[in-house]
């Protein structure tokens, strides 16, 4: 049984969700206030596997809750956003949410994404004990440590969300080669992309912002039209482009 904390002011919605999610293996605790939600999340951090957080909360808004929560815990968070507000999605992801789902949503979609996040978290936690040995990947000015899950740029530590970290890891392992959006979605979000789904792009643009768009004169992460994305290998910047074959295996 996975335990989910739902923070949403729509109490009827919470009832319905509880009803729906139970047979799917999720035990739902719901709270209808941002302040309360934060308190609960913090005081019983170990009790929840996933937090579903509505961005549009009265009083303390969703972003504040997210920010305060993230400063102390890294419990996975799935944001519920308004359909039209792109900026909410980007800001939320930058602040540390793992994925987003615009309202109204199909609860099956919610389950799919929740499961993907949980799987990823489990994998991540699992790696500490029994996965492949942690390694440090160095490309240009970036140093990525898969053990501590910390990234440095020219010695300076950069704070990345779990999804951003996963994205960067995939790109760095395939530095100089193209990685398709589908591969990124599978590897990072644990699910396939639906049509017109911008999740990967949003994570990527926030990653770009955090790392810096350019390294000297060259673009750090290039968008290859019709193919995907590529982390430019500073040793061979000319090689990056349409001539690269999409990398086949990315993660071990």
């Amino acid at each position: 049984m996975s335990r989910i904390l739902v923070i949403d002011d729509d109490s009827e919605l919470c009832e319905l969700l509880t009803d729906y999610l139970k047979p799917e293996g999720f035990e739902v605790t719901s709270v209808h206030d941002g302040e309360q939600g934060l308190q609960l999340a913090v005081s019983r951090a170990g009790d929840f596997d996933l937090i579903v957080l509505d961005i549009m909360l009265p009083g303390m808004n969703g972003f504040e809750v997210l920010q305060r929560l993230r400063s102390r815990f890294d419990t996975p968070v799935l944001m519920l956003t308004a359909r039209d507000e792109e900026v909410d999605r980007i800001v939320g992801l930058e602040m540390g949410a793992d994925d987003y789902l615009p309202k109204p949503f199909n609860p099956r979609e919610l389950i799919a994404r929740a499961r993907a996040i949980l799987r990823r978290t489990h994998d991540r936690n699992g790696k500490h004990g029994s996965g492949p040995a942690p390694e440090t990947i160095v490309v240009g000015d970036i140093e990525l440590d898969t053990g501590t899950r910390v990234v440095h740029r020219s010695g300076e530590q950069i704070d990345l969300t779990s999804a951003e970290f996963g994205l960067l890891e995939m790109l760095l392992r395939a530095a100089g080669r193209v990685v398709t959006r589908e591969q990124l979605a599978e590897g990072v979000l644990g699910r396939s992309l639906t049509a017109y789904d911008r999740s990967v792009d949003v994570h990527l643009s926030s990653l770009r912002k955090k790392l810096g768009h350019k390294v000297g004169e060259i673009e750090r992460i290039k968008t290859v039209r019709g193919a995907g994305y590529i982390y430019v290998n500073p040793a061979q910047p000319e090689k990056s482009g349409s001539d690269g074959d999409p990398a086949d295996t990315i993660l071990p």
Partner: protein
Amino acid sequence: MRSLFVKIFVWFWVGMLLIGVASFLSAMATESLPLFSMPWLRFLVRRPPDEGHLRLRPGSFAGHGIGMVGNSLRLSGQTGAEIYERNGKTALLDYVDNLENAVGIEIFIFNGQKEQLTAHPVSEEVQELSLHQIRAGLDYKRAGDWIFTAQRFTGPSGRRYMLISRLPARRFLQRDFRSQAMNLIFIFLTASGLCYWLARHISSPISKLGAVARRLADGDLKARVGAVLGRRNDEISDLGKDFDQMAERMESLIGSQKRLLRDISHEFRSPLTRLIIALEIARRRDGPEAENALERIELEAERLNALIGKLLMLARLESGADQIEKMPVDMAELLEELVVDADFEARERNCKVRVASTQNCLVNGNRELLRSAIENVLRNAVRHTAENTEVTVSLQLASDGGSAFAGIEVRDNGPGVPEASLADLFSPFYRVGDARDRKQGGTGLGLAITERAVKLHGGRVRAVNAHEGGLIVKIDLPAIKQ
């Protein structure tokens, strides 16, 4: 002349210059206008008329040089007459020679019988003057570059003589000209300085005001005039204050409109969200008999959702509540992304979407709005194109005179649209064939959104039927010149 600064400057500068020139000319033309005898104009030297008679009065404002010359000539003449009468012609000629060398003037001396005592060739002017009845004083005549003066005097014997001199006009005019030129330069400099200051004083705050207005129009709702105009207390600073009040009101109006739209969106979508979850619960609980009805409910819920989204988008575009942040958008990249997604959707009906031709161009605009605009056209095309056909997209950068345009064409292989309805396609909720369109999905709002969004970017959109069948939708957007 576009610039206010230039207008004010030139107007006043030309005005002052004209005054200066007018005073210059009239100074030269008149001799004794009381105006010109004012002390502050004393440095204005008048040029004497080309010929005339000068009466030398003490304190008179005689033609400067000529008067002076006249005086000294008379004295020289009398001396000459003395020498002639006492010592004879040769002595006179010697004297005249020395005199000529000293002052650089040609001197003719005539006796009472109009016979030349000196030995110079006599020109017309000299001839004329010599015959002239000279009144007491000095007569003179200007001919081309020379001035001729004629003067009578009496020798010690009482006999009458005439002295005619020929001197270069330049000598007299030079001084006139030079001081007049100085005068003009002085006016020129003062005029320039004053005009510049005046023009700046008026045009500079106006262009500053314009800059703030432009910022407001471009979306910076916090743009205010405030202290930009500096400390002044005139109509222009009043204008600045009024502008700030207007901007304040605009900001609050737009703010409340945005909040309203956001609230509407929330209020509509909450029940929909609950509906969909309840639906899924029902689906799981009830048997296959209910499935048809449940599917229908799901479909209608999706339609409602799409409709709400589009309506709200349209409302935002219409009201201008959207603060559009504009930045350069890579159109080729955007099209590529959209085509990939549309192609994905098209596969359901065995159709394809592909880019037929593309070019590098940048449009200054809002990426999300542009995306919506083109996405709607694409999805429409995918919906209407016949099974097993393809939808092609092309992008071209064209220039029309001084400006560049990005031209996007989406062509499908569907039934096309009756000629009469082509213009109505972009009206909200317009549908061509009612029943069929509804079945294929679509809200009737997509193209209306496209039109509004494209217009907001200063572009235009239109639809034409292709010769071979199918519809071509063309979007033109102002592009950034490269």
